[in-house]
């Protein structure tokens, strides 16, 4: 799940997501779902080098990748368009079921 700075343009956003997708495919993974939550209000001001951010763009990518994929995502820490990113493992896989949490997958990059 990716939380980006609010003013990031759609092209830059797509560029970032495409780079993650390329990484997934390089590791023989599958990108199963992508979802945008739009602009969300944050619980507190996240301080980055260029100021405090009280809003953010939330995106979710669901993918199936080998377990070592987490380490390869660490390059996202250096990404200045991102506020936060998070990897959540989905162990109880319910394929094809549209649930409230609405996303299935082995590993979900957020």
């Amino acid at each position, binding site marked *: 799940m990716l*939380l980006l700075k609010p003013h990031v343009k759609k092209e830059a956003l797509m560029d970032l997501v495409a780079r993650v997708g390329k990484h997934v495919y390089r590791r023989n993974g599958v990108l199963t779902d992508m979802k945008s939550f739009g602009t969300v209000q944050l*619980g507190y001001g*996240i301080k980055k080098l260029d100021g405090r951010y*009280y*809003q953010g763009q939330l995106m979710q990518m669901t993918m199936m990748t080998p377990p070592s994929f987490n380490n390869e995502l660490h390059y996202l820490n250096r990404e200045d368009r991102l506020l936060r990113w*998070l990897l959540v493992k989905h162990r109880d896989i319910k394929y094809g079921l549209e649930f409230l*949490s609405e996303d299935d997958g082995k590993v979900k990059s957020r």
Partner: protein
Amino acid sequence: MKLIRGVLRSVNVGLSYQSQHLQIIRTFSANTAQVDDEGQNDRQSMNSFESSDDFERRIFGDIPGSGSKSNSFYQKLDRIEKAHDRSGLGSKFNFGKRSEFLDGLDESFNTLSDGMDGKLKKAATYFEYDPEEIAKDDYAFRPDVTFRPGTTYDTKDLDLKKPGVRKPFRRNEFEVTSEEVLKKADFRNVRFLANFITEAGIIIKRNKTKISAKAQRKVAREIKTARAFGLMPFTTMGTKQFIFGKTMEDLDEDYEYDTYDTRSFVDDSRDPLGG
């Protein structure tokens, strides 16, 4: 009694003479008083007794001679006083009707016929009230009960003859079942998780949320995840409360005074003024 008093008096006079005499002696023998023998001690005590008795007699006065006289005087005084009191009462309430009954008052006079009953009744049934009080700003039909907006009442609550029952104020509290929590709790579902934190941003404990330990663990975990991800606040102490969908930025309107949500009403009233 009179006789006895007279005798006593004469005895006292004699004794007092004696005592005076003895006292003089005593003053003279004051230096030797320390080495007095028992007999003299006895006599001294006797003397002191006599003298105190005499003193008493002197203080409480010439009872023997004028006893009966003073008695009669006091009785007379008492009688006059009583009569005056009654006449005073009578004149107060009955305007002197009873003045002729002054002497034979005891039989005819009682508290039932003095006209006080009516006055008391009037005072008990009348209370001061403002006939225009309904039009006043702070008028409340039931001032002893506060009816909050949103609460309901029935006709029994409005009965002024009964004391007001203070209903405990129930905030529209958030209630969930454990199953619902286990299904919905997710760190992305901030709208749901915001129900589980206090005004200060603290996770509400389990005996308040009344959910199972498993559900509470999950809620706490998800809230903490959301906090780390920036979607929920760690604490809102000293700042405004976290409300889902509202920014946490310090805005000017947060520091304004509370205004009622009457924007449309105000606009309506303003339009004719402006136009």
